[in-house]
Structures are given as C-alpha cells and as structure tokens.
C-alpha cells in the first residue's frame, strides 16, 4: 500500500501521481492522509486502483472518476463523484450538495445522509444512500438509479427523464412530472442488486418506486403552468 500525505505533498502531486497509474499498475492501493477538507482530491482518475481517503474531503472529491474505487473515511463536500463515468465511490459519513451530479456511470454509495440536489442531472450513475436525501434531489435526472433507505426531501425528481428512484421512507413531496410507479418484478430485481451492491440491510419490498410521468417530454400548452 502507498501512503500519500496530502498536507505535506500537496494536491498537484497527489493527482498527478494518481493519474500516472496505468491500467496494469502494481501500486493498486493508496491511502491519503491529512485530507483536511481539501478540494478536488483524486479527481479524473482512470485506472483500477483503490484510494482510501482518511478523513473528510472538500468539493468534488473523485470528480469524473473512471474505474477507480475511492473510499472517503469521513464526510464529503459538495459535488462528490460529480460526472463519474465508472468505478465506485464510497462515503462513510454524510455527503454535501450535488453528490453524484451529472454522473454517467459507476456506483456512489453514501453511508450517511446526502444533502440537497443529490443526483442532479444524473446520466446513468447508480447512487445508493443509506440515510436520507435533501430537497430537489434528482432534478432533471436523465438515467440511472437512486436508492434511498431513509426519507427524501421536497421536490424529488423534478422534471426528471428516465431515471428511477427507490425510496424506503417518506417522500416530502414530488417534483413536477415525477410520480409513484408500480414496482414490477423487474424493478424488484434491479433494486435487490443495488441494495446488495450498496451493502444495505433493507428488503426491496419495503421500497416504493418513483419516476417520470413523461407528461413534460414534449411541449404541450395545457402543461404551461409546469414549465
């Protein structure tokens, strides 16, 4: 295992070292100490490595991640795993606003709660939250899945497209064009796999599914109030 002291060695050295890891690197496990809430930790990675951040992170930790597993042993600031393409990001604590924003793929697991706008404009990522998520989550979400083992705040899934949301607890309110949908066997199967991937101790049958009513897909003057 390689240890990197962020405070001593600096952000530029950290990211360029991690970027230098090729597909077949033998330095597959990294530990970052003294993150102290720094921004842009382990961004733009593109190798099958494991990065353990020993503490809390600032903005955009693991932004645009590909292939790598980034594990934050603390809480994470805004925009964690934003625009992730593949790989896995795990946050042991809570995640601030816009977690997983615009993510195209991969898995984001948040063991605590996620703040507002979790999964905003997501484009294929899977986000699994053990706790609650804040208001305006999944705004304009395009595709992918969000699993919430706790409750969801106001305006879940406003103006969403084809993304799916599974919530175990209550939903304070649904956003425009977001509706509760039937849980068919294929959805149960998808959810079971997600719960397992996220290490969640919950049963798929306890969840409800939400998604787009598809009424805002093409402009219709009778829906003008919703625009």
């Amino acid at each position: 295992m390689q240890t990197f002291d962020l405070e001593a060695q600096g952000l530029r050295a950290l990211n360029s070292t991690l970027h230098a890891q090729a597909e077949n690197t033998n330095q597959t496990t990294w530990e970052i100490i003294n993150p102290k809430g720094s921004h842009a930790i382990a961004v733009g990675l593109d190798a099958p490595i494991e990065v353990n951040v020993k503490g809390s992170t600032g903005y955009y930790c693991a932004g645009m991640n590909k292939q790598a597993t980034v594990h934050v042993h603390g809480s994470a600031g805004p925009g964690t795993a934003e625009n992730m393409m593949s790989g896995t990001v795990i946050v042991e604590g809570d995640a601030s606003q816009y977690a997983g924003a615009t993510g195209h793929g991969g898995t984001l697991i948040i063991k605590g709660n996620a703040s507002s706008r979790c999964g905003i404009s997501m484009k294929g990522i899977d986000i699994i939250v053990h706790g609650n998520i804040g208001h305006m989550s999944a705004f304009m979400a395009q595709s992918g899945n969000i699993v919430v083992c706790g409750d969801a705040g106001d305006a879940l899934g406003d103006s969403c497209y084809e993304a799916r949301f599974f919530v175990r607890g209550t939903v304070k309110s649904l956003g425009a064009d977001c509706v509760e949908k039937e849980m068919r066997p294929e959805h149960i199967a998808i959810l079971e796999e997600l719960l397992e991937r996220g290490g969640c101790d919950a049963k798929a049958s306890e969840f409800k599914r939400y998604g787009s009513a598809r009424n805002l897909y093409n402009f219709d003057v009778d829906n003008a109030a919703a625009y």
Partner: protein
Amino acid sequence: MKDFDAKGIPHTTPRQSATFTQDANSDIRRAAATGIYDIRGGGAKRKVPSFDDLLFLGASISRYPLEGYREKCGTDVKLGTRFAQNPIELDIPITIAGMSFGALSGPAKEALGRGANAAGTSTTTGDGGMTPEERGHSSKLVYQYLPSRYGMNPDDLRKADAIEIVVGQGAKPGGGGMLLGQKISDRVAEMRNLPKGIDQRSSCRHPDWTGPDDLEIKILELREITGWKVPIYVKVAGARPYFDTTLAVKAGADVVVLDGMQGGTAATQDVFIEHVGQPTLACIRPAVRALQDLGMHREVQLVVSGGIRSGADVAKAMALGADAVAIGTAALIALGDNDPKWEAEYNELGTTAGAYDDWHEGMDPAGITTQDPELMKRFDPIEGGRRLKNYLKVLTLEAQTIARACGKNHMHNLEPEDLVALTMEAAAMAQVPLAGTDWYPGKPNTSY
C-alpha cells in the same frame, strides 16, 4: 379606399400605430393562435448601438500609416497565458464560437473545423459534446463545459486544447437552451443520454456550483483533471460585464469570453433574445476596465462576440480592448445559411432568405442547422470549409487594412484613441469622442 364618408366628410389618412406595429400585431396573432411563446434561433434583430456607430480616424500628420503590402501588421494572438502550460496560439484574432452538435449537423461542424484550420484559428464545441468529426478536423478545439453537461466526459475533456466554462450567452443571459424533439436523431439522443424525439432542455445554471467562490473550486477541479495543461476560458453574457469579468478573473480564468446581445443562439424564446442583455458595444469597455483595475489586461485575454460581421467590426472590438473576437452567425452565413439560392424553399416555410431563424425546427433548406439526413446531403463540408477559410481571410485582411491605416504594426496596437463615435449613445458606450468633438458622455473632468 374612399376619401369621403356617406355624409361627404373626409376620412383622415389611415394611420398605423408606432406602438402596435405590423410586427407587434403579428406576434399577438401568433400568440393567440398557439398559446406558447415564439422560439427561434439567431440574435437580437432590433437595432441597437453597434460597431456601425464607430469610425476609425486613420492616419494624419501626427500619426503615420504603414504601407499596405510591404509593412507587417501582425494578427497572431496567444490565449491562456496566465496559468496554462499550453496556451492556444492562433494566427488570426478571430475564433469560431461554440455551436452545438445537435443544433448543427455533423458535416456543418466538420466544415467549421476545416475552415478554421485552414485559417489558423480555433473552433469550439457546444451543448451536446464533442464529435469525432469536429475533433478530427480542428487542430485547435475548445471544449465547452455547459450547465447541461450533455456528452460531458473526462476523455473528451483531456482531448481538448482549451476548456470553456459557459456561464451565459449574449442571446439569453440567465437562460437555458431547448432542442425540440424533431431534431433529436438517434445520434443526438445517444450523445445526450436521453430518449429520441423528446424536447431536450438545457439548464440555465450549473448543477454543481453556484457563485464565484464555487467557480474558483470548479476551475481548480478542471485544472487538476487536465494537469494544468490547457487554458480555461469563462464565457459570460453581456449582462454585468464589469462584475462578471472581475469575478471570472478572481475565480482563476485564463480567458474571458464576452458575448453581447446580438450574439446568436440555436433556439430561445424571442422575448429573451430581444429584451435581455446589453449590446456588444456597451459591454467591451466595462470588461476592459475590470481587467485594467485588476492589472490583468492582456494577461487574461478578452474574446468578444455578438454581431461581428466584417474586418471593421473585428478592428473596432480590438481597438476597444479585446484580444480577439469570436463569430457564430457570420460563420454559418459563410457556410451557406440563409443563402438566397434557397428562396423558394424559404418562402414555403413562410419566410425569406436572410430572415430564416427557425433553426430549431430542423428543416433548414441549406442543410446546416438540421439533423435530417436528406437535407444534410445538400451541404458539402469541404466546400463549406473552403468558404469559411476565404471569409476568415477577408476579415483578417480588412482588419489589417484598417490597422495599417492607423499606423499599427500589430492588431493589438489598435486603441480607443483611433476611434470616434457617430452618435451620443455610441460615444457613451464606447467611451470615445463624438465625431467632431473631444467629448463623450461621462468623460471624467469635463466642464460642460
């Protein structure tokens, strides 16, 4: 028409209202028939104070000119010298503005790349991501980072020669975009991760940052991902140019792109295009003053766009302090957009060459702003590229002609002192004297 009524009393001359004009009335009838605002492409069509209201003084006894064909007048420009390891080096100070694949066809994007390459300048992606045609045919490609993040991915980010964070566009400061379902082909849908045939809204605000402090961190993230190699531009609409420029520079931008209200768009509400934002002319001096106040003029480069048509416009923008300009609409016209040769088809669409702006409907007779495979065939990217190259050359020659006449051996030596204004408005906005006077409104230390 009868001159007298039944009682022999003369009718007054029928009088059209200056308020309820034929245009305004047709808008009302259209609204009453549809119940939805009018969406169109292009920029503000209303007349606003512009570069046409400025003139160059040329040389005189105290300023001598340079010889047209013998003495050099440099046109090269370096963008992104502040932080980037690899600034963009252009032969001419005219770049191609960001126009989305989706709004434009693949071959149109290819033509922009071919033309820009041949002229030694850069092109810019747009909403919807980077296409292989565009990357392949543009030796210098600026990758836009937009609120929608359609097609955004780190591989393309690292293929870019510069990154442009789009905060706003002059046609619609504070507005997002809209690509109507009819333009969403399989390819466009796939690039944007959305179903085919549905209206695609582009958000007006970035999903993961708000305000200048966040922007600074976002720029840090993008630099870390791309290893501090390429310049980062910030594009703002001509709304509050002094503050937006100041904040962009403070957030760490290498280049500020400033787009005035005449700037084109692929599709937005007409009411937005015509009523929000400031004319390009009004935006340049405040932006330059912001750079000067920060000691950053020429350190952070300023690229101005919105209504640039001729070499005179290029020279005027640069004399007011811009380092370069960007063109959108003019480049499309050079490719063949709105060409009178399609007049019969424009008439079928209820319009006429020069006024066609329903680019969002995807039925462009010139085959440029469409995804329809049949219409696209009408456009030849090689010929289009050649035409764009010619046009860029002419813009450059024209701008050089003016600069030489003003005695400048480089375009960047043009200065406000070379200009006068024809109207009070233009004098106030450009802060150059009204022709025939040594005064402009707001000039400090004048006693009138």
